[in-house]
Structure formats: C-alpha cells, structure tokens
C-alpha cells in the first residue's frame, strides 16, 4: 500500500510540470479534460498565470469562431436551402469575432474581468442561437457545441479573476 501511495505521488509529479497551474485551474471548470487539452496544446500554458490561461482560451474561442465562419461560408453553396439559418449564424459568429473576443481580451488584460466574463458568456449564447436556427442536427452542430463547451470552461476561469 505504501508502494501504491508512492507510485501515485510519482505519477502526480510527472503530470504536473514545473509551476503549471493548468490542472488545479481546470478542476474548477465544468470540463476538466477539455480544459486541460486546450491549455496543454498551447506552449504558453504551462507557465501562464490565471489571466494567461483565460487569454489562451479566448484565443481558442477566436480560432474556433474563425473556423466556424469558414465552414458557414462553404455551406452556402453545398446547402443552399439552409441560407436563412446560415445568415443568422454568420451574424452571430461575426459578433463573437468582432465584439466578444476583443472585449474579453481587453477586459482581462486590464484587470476588469467582469466584462471579459460577459464576452465569453456571449460567445456561448451566440453559438447556441446559431444552432437553434436549424431543425435538429446541422452541419454546424459539433462546432457550435464545441463553442458552448469552451465558453463554459473559459467563463469559469475568468470568474476566478473577479
């Protein structure tokens, strides 16, 4: 049994690289594994403070929004019958890129995280609204779901800054 405890200690120390707060931070979010994988995928993650982790995730939101917008643009030709819903999604995702993300970055960098929280929450809302424009599953479903999940995780981290 003592051997087991020791092994666990070793493993824990292996999992945590020097000074990284990714794991303890991610434990306080609604989706630990998503949080860890997103933050570990960024080289700045292991040495970032809480603000830094929040900014990395906002970067991910930005990237996902860009990717989704590209997808939306491509769908106009492939699925012309979805035009109305695509128009709404396009508007919503442009809001994420042009309003939510810059607001969140500025707010967190300047130490007024509540506006960052607003921006991050809104990213999730816009994704949900976009998805709601389709009748059930759509070509964008997994992308909008991702945005909602990332928004929830990011929000939890931003709230730690309040």
């Amino acid at each position, binding site marked *: 049994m003592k051997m*087991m405890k*020791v*092994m*666990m*200690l*070793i*493993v*824990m*120390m*292996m*999992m*945590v690289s020097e000074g990284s*707060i990714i*794991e*303890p*931070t991610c*434990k*306080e*979010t*609604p989706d*630990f594994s998503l949080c860890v994988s997103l933050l570990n995928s960024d080289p700045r993650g292991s040495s970032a*403070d*809480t603000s830094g982790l929040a900014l990395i995730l906002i970067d991910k939101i930005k990237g996902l929004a860009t990717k989704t917008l590209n997808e939306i643009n491509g769908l106009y030709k492939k699925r012309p019958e979805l035009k*109305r*819903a695509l128009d709404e999604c396009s508007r919503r995702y442009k*809001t994420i890129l042009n*309003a*939510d993300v*810059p*607001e969140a970055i*500025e*707010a967190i*960098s*300047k*130490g*007024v*995280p*509540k*506006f960052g*929280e*607003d*921006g991050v*929450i*809104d990213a*999730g*809302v*816009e994704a*949900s*609204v*976009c*998805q*709601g424009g389709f009748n*059930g599953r759509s070509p964008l479903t997994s992308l909008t779901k991702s945005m*909602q999940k990332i928004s*929830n995780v990011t*929000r*939890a981290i931003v*709230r730690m*800054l*309040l």
Partner: protein
Amino acid sequence: MASTEALLPVTSRQDPLSESRSDQIPETRRRRPIKVHLAVYSGLLLIALYVALIVTHDGSTAQHGAKDESSTESRASLAGVSEKSNDRVSRLSDDRKVEAFPWNNTMLSWQRTAFHFQPEKNWMNDPNGPLFYKGWYHFFYQYNPNAAVWGDIVWGHAVSKDLIHWLYLPIAMVPDQWYDANGVWTGSATFLDDGSIVMLYTGSTDKFVQVQNLAYPEDPSDPLLLKWAKFSGNPVLVPPPGIGAKDFRDPTTAWKTSTGKWRITIGSKINRTGISLIYDTTDFKTYEKHDTLLHQVPNTGMWECVDFYPVSKTQVNGLDTSVNGPGVKHVIKASMDDTRIDHYAIGTYYDSNGTWVPDNPSIDVGISTALRYDYGKFYASKTFYDQNKGRRILWGWIGESDSEAADVQKGWSSVQGIPRTVVLDTRTRKNLVQWPVEEIKSLRLSSKKFDMTIGPGTVVPVDVGSATQLDIEAEFEIKTEDLKLFFDDDSVEADKKFSCETSGGSTARGALGPFGFSVLADESLSEQTPVYFYVTKGKHSKLKTVFCTDTSRSTMANDVVKPIYGSFVPVLKGEKLTMRILVDHSIVEGFAQGGRTCITSRVYPTKAIYGATKLFLFNNAIDATVTASFKVWQMNSAFIHPYSPDDLGVPSRT
C-alpha cells in the same frame, strides 16, 4: 488576481523519476531479475497513473464540493437573482432545440429609449463625476467611442438644466497620458471650499496598473466645463503595498473631516474580503493612507464603485457629503464584482479614526441578503449632492440583457436609470427610499384616471392608447373580508421561503396575489411584463408583501435573459399598497411603497412594440378581490440631442 490553490503537492523541482527509483524500491526486491523488476514497476506505474487520475479527480470534488462547476452559478443564485449568464447558459447550452430569433431592424430600433439618458450610439457603462455647476447638471460616463461592447474607454459628457433634457457635449477626457493610456475609468467630483471642482478618476496605465489621477476644469468660467486638464504630477495614488495592481479603482467624492482635511475612500479586495481603503489629503495631490480601513466584509469579493455619504435621520432632504453630526447616519454602498449587484448598508461613521460600523451586521455591505438600491438590473451606481435643490441624487448604470449580436446590430448598448432622490426612510429608519426626480413630471402629457375592482383570476385591458412611454401611479387595496378570511384561516402556512424568483412568477397563484400591471404586453398577452405585488402570511401572522417584476414571458425571443426580479417591501400600518411604474420602450422601472423597493428591468418584446403595445391590469389571486385606483400618463420624449448654441437661449422646461 489569481485565486486558485494548487491541489497537487508540487514540491520537488528535480526529476521525480530519477530521485524516487533508487529511494523507493525496498531492499528485498533488488534480488529479483531486472526484467521482472521492470515489468512489475511499469505495471504498478500504470495502475498508479490510473488510480491517481481517479483519486485526484474525486479528491478535488470532495475538497472543493462548494467550488465545483455549479459554483459559478451558485454564487449568483445565492444573491437571489437569476443572473443573466446562468439563465442564458443553462437555457441554451443544453440540447433542447432553441428557435433562433432573427431580430429585424424594426424590432431593434423600437428598443431605444425616449426619456432615459443614452449616448447617440455605442457602449456606455458607469456614471462618472455627476455634479451641478453654474446652472447646469453635468453627467459624465464611461463610453466606448468605437463599438457597442465595452472597450477603449473615454469619459463621455452631457449637460442638462433639469436632469431629464440632456444635451450631448464633446468627449471630456481621453486616454492620452501614460497613466491612463489603457482607460480613463470611473471617478468622482469634489467641490472645494472656494467652489472650484476637482475630479479624481482611475486610470489604467500603459502597464495596466490601476492608479488614481487628478483632473480639473481647464476653464472654470465655462459653465459647460467642456475642457478638462490633467494634473501634471499624476498619478496621485498608486496601489499601496498588499493591494493588487488591478484591484484599485473608483475613487469617491471627498468629505471634510473635523480636522479640516479631505478624506476619500477607494474599494479593493484582499483575497476574498471586500474592503474600502481610506486616504486623507489637503490638496488632492499628496495623500496619507490610513492603516485601518473604512470597512471590510469577508467573502464579498472586489468592491467596485464604492460610495459613502451622510443621510439625515429626520429630514427628507439631501446632505452635502461633508455633513456629520448626531442627526445623521452614513451609508456605505459598493458594487459587487462577483455578482453585479449594488448593495448598501446604513451605519455610523467615526470621523476620528475613519471607520464605519453597520447598524445591522447580518446585512452588511455585500452579503447576499444586504439591501440593494434596486432588485433588478442596476450597477455601478453613484450619488452626488445637488446643492441646487438640496437633494442627494442617485445615478445607476442599466446594462442590456440581450445578446451582443443584437447590440452590435442596433448599434448601442446600455442606458442610465432615471436619476433618483435618495433619503433615509424616516419611518422604518432601516432602509433608504428612492424616487424619480420631480423634473420627470415635465414629460407628462395627457393622463387618464381609473378606479377598478377586479375579482380573483381576472385580466383587464387598460385603454390608454399608446403604451410604450408611460408613467403609472397606482394604489391597491385588498378587499377586507378576504383579508379577514386570510388571517382567520389557520391552515394557511406561512410562506417562509417565498421570493419573487422562487415563486414561479406572476402565474403562481396565491390567496392574496399576485396582482398588478402587465406592461409591454401584446393584445393576446403572448408577450407581457407583469409588475406586481404578492401578499402572503409572514412570521407571526403579519402580512408580508413582495414586489416583483417578471420578465420570463416578456418576449418570444430566446437569446435574451428573462429573470424574475424583486424583493420584500415593508408596508407599515395604515399604508395602502402603492406602486409607480415608468415604461420607456426596453426599460421598465418599478417603485413600491414610495420607493422602498425598486426594480429596473430590460425587456425586448418582438410583438408588443409600437402600436401593438398594450397595458393590462391583473389579479391572479385565488381568494382576494382587489381595488386599483390609478392614473396613467403618456410620457413625452426628452429629445436628448447634441448641444448647440441655440440651447443656451432655451428657457428651462420645468
């Protein structure tokens, strides 16, 4: 400031594997062949890895039971309000189909208010430096000149003769110095003994540090105070030792101490304790920080926009910020960063050491059950002493409850509440009373008077013509036989935990309520915003009255937040139930019992707009018949517009 605690024992900086391999393997195993040794070792390692993952995950849940994923929601729900974000996230993030609501420009342009202050376009937040000078009321505000979301903040500026008819002026201050390069943030004005004005405000420096800066009118003979000069020696205050570089903002108006020095307070936090720092100064350029705090309350988080002022115990006029004495109580108010709620508490100020003690520590500033100026959407509020009419006036920032996409599409975000007078409730002595400034009556056009008796379960249309800009004053009485019935009926259990939020809103029927008005309703009531009383049996058989606004059915749209707001309102013996409602497109302000409980809501109907907006009176009680005696005025627009030289010649409209 990061507030996470490392759960895992991050100790040794050395490579844990190399260290432990030699230490931990017991002697007896060294005799086994290497291969078996390695196989056993790696097998155990894999098991350990697996177990560690489970243990650390479970361990975290156990250790941080209160801090798991629902904590982001629970903090806000503790405050008793369905916080914007939680409502939205929980409603839209699950897999239920949500019909998107495509906002069109007709619906969006209706939302703009007619008589509440808002800039011509873009984002606004905190009120700043309100003051009265040379015949004009001045209002400054946090403003983004570039977008309909927060950012690039400057000080917007407007003036008015009557706190209602505002004239837009050029921007007063921009981030043009290193000490406010990243934002010219919230601040307050102080009048010196010679009548001159000093303005203290927070700057976000080029290195993102929050500091306090001094500014003053460039030309004091200009009644419009168009230009502002910044003190060459700025910043005058930087975060003191022990205070985070980003936890130091929103300086208050200064007050005179008995020794003749000026004193200010600035909100901050130490870990999770909200605090208010206190400084003395003679010239607003150099300051002495007290070692003690004006006040602190654990577990309330960062205190933003702290406000501190005296109220008279006996008279219903306002007091200059420096007034002190036996006939006076002092109010501390703070905006809670964690919950976006403004709380205040009444207490006693000790000038000799700059401390303040609440009358009732169980509802101290920031505690979830502490009093609020407003039980709806209302934040970053600030008062000023209006020496023109001897009143203390309260400004409050009313943000949007819709999506940012809609804000971007309509091109603006946020309004200010109608300025309110604030006095101590001389009857209860335990709370403040707020009321829209008298000058708003100048907007009243035609009116209609009604006296109606409505039985249980009735909804009655109130024919007032247009119903998007209204001022309603109403008195309600519950038919006495029903009240007697209620008191005598012992089987009726006291509704201990009743609150607007948990009660199911205006459709949940009780013996004596809910009853009130449905504003911004369409003919078929598919969209409506009830503002109502709900009377229940409280402790000791006394009737308890709650005043609520239910926005849950205010719109068909699903990308807006639709909370149910409200609170208990004291109703003293002999008082009738009274309410006042100001309706102005997408904002509804309700005042119960002369302003003992106030609720501001943002509402975004899709159908109940323009000519289709209607007003209803309703009584959803099961047993009680209610008489309503009320007057409804059509309200004119305030025609808020950019200042022009012609405006100087226009006489005051009051």
